[in-house]
């Protein structure tokens, strides 16, 4: 069922971080976020809808992102998500945490 379910908390937190990072570029609807993560990762990361929407709603509830209904590029009613100041702070925190983690893992992997 996508990256959300396959790897536990680390991966779930990672999806949240990726969403926040993506929204740094500006308001976006759900489909756009999924596409953007996919293309930015050179199609390595495929975000499944079953994980994306619950994650979006959770972030909205936690107040890290805001939602607004608007017009999409093809003139359809769509829900646009936007980063809140709280979300920005959260992103910085998670990014720092992520960097620490990857450095640590890299150090172990390169040790041998």
């Amino acid at each position: 069922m996508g990256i959300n379910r396959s790897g536990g908390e680390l991966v779930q937190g990672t999806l949240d971080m990726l969403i926040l990072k993506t929204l740094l570029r500006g308001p976006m609807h759900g489909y756009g976020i999924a596409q953007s993560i996919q293309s930015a990762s050179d199609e390595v990361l495929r975000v499944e809808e079953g994980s994306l929407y619950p994650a979006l709603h959770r972030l909205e509830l936690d107040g890290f992102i805001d939602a607004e209904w608007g017009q999409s590029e093809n003139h359809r009613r769509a829900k646009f998500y936007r980063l809140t100041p709280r979300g920005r702070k959260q992103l910085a925190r998670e990014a720092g945490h992520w960097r620490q983690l990857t450095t640590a893992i890299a150090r172990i992997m390169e040790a041998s």
Partner: protein
Amino acid sequence: MKKFWKRLSALWHRDQLERDLEDELSFHLAMKASETGDAPSAHRSFGNATAFKESCRELWLFSTLDSLSQDVRYAARTLRRSPLVTGVAIVALALGIGINTTVFTVIGSALRFDMGVDRIDRVVTLMPGETASTSRPQPTPDIWTLRREVKTIASLAAYRFTPVNLSDSHALPERCSNVQMTASGWAMVKPKPALGRGFVPADELPSAAPAVLLSYRVWRRRYGGDASILNQTVRVDDVPRTVIGVMPPGAQFPEDADIWTPLTITDALAASSQRGLLIFGRLAEGATLVAARAEVDAVARRVYPNRAGGHFVNVSPFLQMIGVYDSRALLIAVMFAVGFVLLIVCADVANLLLARAAARSREIAVRIAIGAGRARVIRQLLIESVMLAAAGGIGGWLVAVPTLRWFDGMTEGGHRPSWIHFSMDTRAFLYLAGVSIGAGIIFGLAPALQLARTDVNSAIKDGGRSAEGGRRGRRLSGILVAGQMALCVVLLAGAGLMIHSTVNLYAAPMGFDARNVVKMRISLSETKYPSPAAALAFQQTLKSQIAAIPGVVQVALASNLPLAGSRPFRVECEGQSPSQWDGRSPSVVRQPSPPTMSAALLVDENYFRTLQIPVEQGRTFTRDDDAAVVVNQAFAARFWPGEPAIGKRLRPVSGDAAHAWLTVAGVVHDVEQDLFQPLAHTALVYLPESSQPLRDSFVIARTSAPPQALVEPFRRAVQALDENLPAQDAAALSNFIEERRLNITSFEKLFTLFATVALLLASIGLYAVIAHAVSRRTQEIGIRMAMGGARRDIFSLVLKQGMRHVAYGFLAGLPLAFALTRVLKRLLVGVSPADPATFLAVALVLGAAGALGCAIPARRAVRVDPLTALRHE
């Protein structure tokens, strides 16, 4: 916090949330489809939209709350689907919970001891103690000394309870209970007077104007609740006293009195601690009862250094003086009994649910298969049973409220302490709610755990007849039935013992003829009848007036009525037989015995003929026969065994002074004098009343007319002689005896009722379990029959299966019953708590009820048609 509001608004705009979710996902799908140009494949790769929506929805809503309401709706549907099981369960629960709540309210209320005093459990009484060797009340230090010396008991007070005659111009004179109490006692009383003022130390001074405080009920009844009675003068025992106030309803301390007057402790009063004066006080901060006992004892030893061992003063909890306090164990036993009835109901309902569980295992398996967690399944099932119990609780409330009202009406106005209110208050309601929910969890847990362990694969495969789960369920219901039977044994044993007691009670010869006897109590005040001679003269006149009433055959006077106790009497008997004197030579045979406690009644010369007590030997005394006494058979047998009692001498002993010798003129048949010991007769001496005229006595008259018709003429006869003298409790003697016995007979009825209900419920439980087992085994029985099994064998097979539960239950119940029936000991008459005959009867009754419960399904089993049974699948 913000999250909470967001959720709350989502809950409010629930439709909006649904639409938004729908729109958002369909937009995504449309985008995806337009991008790839392949709608079906987009759909496929999109996955289960319903599940996404559900998980998003769960985020937004208070998911537990939401799923809870789902479960509740589902449970309601399930319960509605099987109306018979639901109906039976609810009715049984309603009865069980209703009876429980009623009894809890009644007994809980009785045991509250809300007497209007803070921490009544810290209040102690100081009574003269007795030493083991002499059984003589010991001289005790007076209240002044105790107040000065004892530090563990703060604020020592004293009161005495005296019956007085209350008279004034408002109504006929009446006999009132009066409590005379020191101001220090009044300081402990919490409720303030409803009208006027309470007593203050100044009222105690000899110079103070005589005052009286009325109880609320006397104020309402006698003075019509008129406030103008304040500062008026009424006569209490012919002493004019000013009414200073009215106590609020329910004022109860230290006793349930009609009126209160101040108590002035004079030196004379303080010196004689035996004059009905009761000293009490509150344990000082941090002091214990044990410490107070030790200190009081030490003080007493200092005051009387020459005394032998034993306690001088008994320090005991104040509550011990209250009748209900002594019956605590008994009342708690009754609570246990109804608790057992409820447990039996729970077991019944659990068995019903277990039987249904077998049929539901497939449904549960499907729920587990499509992803319901086991915890969720257990919760769902528990919700079902708690809902069942809640419905039962509502039913129970409908049972309890009228029952309580009925009970309240029935006991109204009797000798019921005023803190006892039989009504559904908050406490009772909380109890009811707690019991309902608790019962729901108790009877729901077993089936729920049972079902949650359902093995999904086998349950779905073999259509809800999973062998493994079924066996476990059957064992569980077998244990429940055996448990029910065990509880029944306890209740049946209690009921059996009480029935046995009641039979003994009524079978015991009373020793007199209670039919056609009227009795009435007369109490003469010291003010109006100062000398014994005046009292005697009044009694003689009254007797002759009453004897003149048409329909009266004979009139007598006595200090105590039959079944109403006797007076303690220390006696020294002459010529005790040598057998009582171990090791002494026969030459001391004429030496008097050491003074011994016995009992006496003061009666006049007509007493024996009026009550028709047979004279066994000799004669009764005549009117001027002051030196003659009559003893009963028990007395003669105790003091002069194997010797003629006639002509023997005895004398009363009070303190260290002995009185003149009296000669035994006759021996009369034993009369039932002690209510609780109808079979063991007290050794009694009948003293002529004329030797020490009674101020407080009973007039007894044998009539030729129905006694009820003579009650009114009796009252009028008293009024004609002294208009300030009340004729108390004038009634037929047989009614009085029934009233006295009510204590025992009402417990008997209660236990019999509980035991019957319990037995019925347990038999129904057994029936249900066996019937279910038979229906499960229809196929097997069919095969047995087809193979040539005899009907009789099949019948006994089923019967044996059922009776095994009964036997296990009986064995498990026996020790429990032995342990608990001991509490009933106080009420038992001529029966030991482990009476073998009673327990045999219990076994028989239980066996019979069990056999009946099994026989019905067993009969059905043997009627099974082998062909139908085999085609049954």
